[in-house]
């Protein structure tokens, strides 16, 4: 995969997989979290795979499409990967909204899982 550092390959593959699952069938997202995972969704905190999937599944839209504007990835001192995503989303017939999302990925038993996930809409961030 060329010159890209390994953490960028892993981070961008994860990001692609995550939004693809989210946009097609978000009830399947449980596969990427573990029981110790934390999610903060618009300031609301959830811990554990079950609670996170329940929250994501109960979001009040039928269809959603994410498009990524920019993504950054870094290795951490504990061999995790931190990823930050800036993008736009369209939920049902709502207007397009900007969003910010950050992840920590950790390799557990040969698989990369998401241990930390933070999401915020960008709509409140303008003067």
């Amino acid at each position, binding site marked *: 995969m060329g010159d890209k550092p390994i953490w960028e390959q892993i981070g961008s593959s994860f990001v692609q997989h995550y939004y693809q699952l989210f946009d097609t069938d978000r009830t399947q997202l449980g596969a990427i979290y573990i029981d*110790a995972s934390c999610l903060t969704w618009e300031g609301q905190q959830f811990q554990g795979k079950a609670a996170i999937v329940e929250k994501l599944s109960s979001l009040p839209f039928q269809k959603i499409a994410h498009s990524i*504007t*920019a993504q950054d990835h870094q*290795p*951490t001192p504990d061999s995790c990967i931190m990823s*930050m995503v800036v993008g736009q989303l369209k939920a049902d017939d709502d207007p397009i909204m900007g969003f910010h999302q950050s992840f920590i990925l950790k390799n557990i038993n040969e698989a990369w899982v998401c241990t930390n996930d*933070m999401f915020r809409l*960008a709509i*409140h*961030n303008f003067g």
Partner: protein
Amino acid sequence: MFRSSDTCCVDALASGHRVMGDKPLWEQIGAGFVQLYYQQFDTDRVKLADLYYDDCFMTFEGTTVRGKNDVMAKLNSLPFRSIQHIITAQDHHPTPDNCVMSMVMGQLKADQDQVMGFQQVFLLKNIGNKWLCTNEMFRLSLHNFA
């Protein structure tokens, strides 16, 4: 400011114990760091060096630099004289490796430029009894609108 008073902090962080009122420890650590970081950034960003781990990473608008010296060189080379950050929202998490992850959304005003939105993420780690930034990412939000 970021010296943890005892070694129990990291255990408390992992187990989710709440101390000092209702706020979890990782929120106190994260919010304390965020407040100090922007305060120093807005008054004298040379002093930010105290907050970074020697082998830290920073990605600034898509460009990555590694190591405290390179991070400080990047921050000091930013082409504005005065800057002011305002925080719109901040979130903090404990991580499985006893770090604290913080995400900040805010607005900034540099010199006479118009106010711009920004997004920033930090990973903080307790090293030598001090909470230091090991990873940081910064993006302006201005390219994110249709």
